[in-house]
């Protein structure tokens, strides 16, 4: 970590230029994932610089843009939880943010970080999928569907920075996270459901957070029982240190049934 260069951009434009110009550079927001990886030296190739986005005002805040609610990529989960607008229009996002870590992590974790990290267990990511959120970057707007290309791999170009996430304001989304303990837990299954339009999105059951097309098709026709049955074929969970494929499969179905019956 001593050998890492710390780069502090003056504003977003500056950040975009510096990111392009600095070799082996990683964008740093709240650090809740990146700082752990840097300390453990698990990233390959090893980064030579970090670009600090945390304090850029352009990446903070909650505002309305073109009829959607936009949250800055570096806004903290605490900021999201405390935003009256987010409470009113995106309660599932508040619910998800409140299950992340605990106070210390919520004060630093960000949507931008969750997205860029693209962990299949990212707690907000199924919520973003269920909302059909839009990932806004320094150069375009990318629909969340198709944003996750593979394990920890996104549709972002090598020098592209996430600046905000936009959400439609009129959806009813339900959220449930199943973790090993009540706080500070990486999920075993994390699921977000919307009835209209039919959206079922789940994390920790594949190499990416994903939508469940067969289950959604059944849900779209009002076949709740069919949705619960169909979801088994939509997911591809594995055995890992946290849990087993068999458990994840059963729990996904159980939790989906619970959410659909609410």
């Amino acid at each position, binding site marked *: 970590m001593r050998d890492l260069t710390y780069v*502090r951009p003056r504003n977003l434009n500056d950040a975009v230029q510096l990111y392009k110009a600095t070799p082996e550079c990683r964008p740093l927001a709240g650090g*809740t994932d990146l*700082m*752990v990886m840097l300390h453990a030296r698990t990233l390959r190739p090893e980064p030579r610089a970090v670009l*600090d986005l945390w304090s850029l005002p352009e990446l903070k805040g909650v505002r309305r843009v073109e009829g959607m609610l936009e949250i800055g990529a570096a806004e903290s989960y605490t900021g999201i939880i405390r935003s009256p607008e987010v409470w009113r229009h995106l309660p599932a996002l508040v619910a998800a943010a409140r299950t992340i*870590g*605990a*106070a*210390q992590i919520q004060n630093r974790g960000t949507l931008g970080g969750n997205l860029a990290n693209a962990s299949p267990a990212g707690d907000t990511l199924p919520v973003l999928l269920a909302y059909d959120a839009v990932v806004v970057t320094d150069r375009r707007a990318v629909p969340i569907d198709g944003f996750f290309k593979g394990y920890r791999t996104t549709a972002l170009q090598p020098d592209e920075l996430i600046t905000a996430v936009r959400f439609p304001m009129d959806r009813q989304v339900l959220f449930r996270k199943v973790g090993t303990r009540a706080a500070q837990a990486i999920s075993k299954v994390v699921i977000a459901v919307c009835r209209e339009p039919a959206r079922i999105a789940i994390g920790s059951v594949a190499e990416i957070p994903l939508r469940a097309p067969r289950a959604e098709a059944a849900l779209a026709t009002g076949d709740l029982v069919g949705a619960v049955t169909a979801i088994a074929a939509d997911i591809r969970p594995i055995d890992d240190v946290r849990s087993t494929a068999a458990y994840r499969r059963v729990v996904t179905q159980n939790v989906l049934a619970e959410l659909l019956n609410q």
Partner: protein
Amino acid sequence: MTVRFTLNGREVSSEGSGARRLLDVLREDLRQTGTKEGCGEGECGACSVLIDGEVVDSCLVAVGQVEGRRVVTIEGLQSPLQQAFIEHGAAQCGICTPGMLLAAHVLLLRTRRPSADDVREALAGNLCRCTGYTKIIEAVLSCAI
């Protein structure tokens, strides 16, 4: 690079890479060892500090990120919580105590009369292995107005 920030009310600065962990700068450069390293992963909360009044894990903060900010560590805390912790037996081995006190302090600033559940939620990021949390919660509730 030089990073300048306020630590417990006084101006300090740090030299070296801005990517160094704030935890290491506090403990090694500034010799403030009240902030502890329990895991280096942001799981245990023993390294908790306040940055502009918010409790964070200092093992997850790059020192460059505190330029111009107000950092408070256990050494800068003056709170009735401290006496309450002694009286109620909320500190046993003491290694989680600095982080626990800072997290509790922030809770009481925001919520004057927290419930026991509020206290549990506010302290969920501070692991304790000695106390079972019971007397910690008692101590915090005893300081609620």
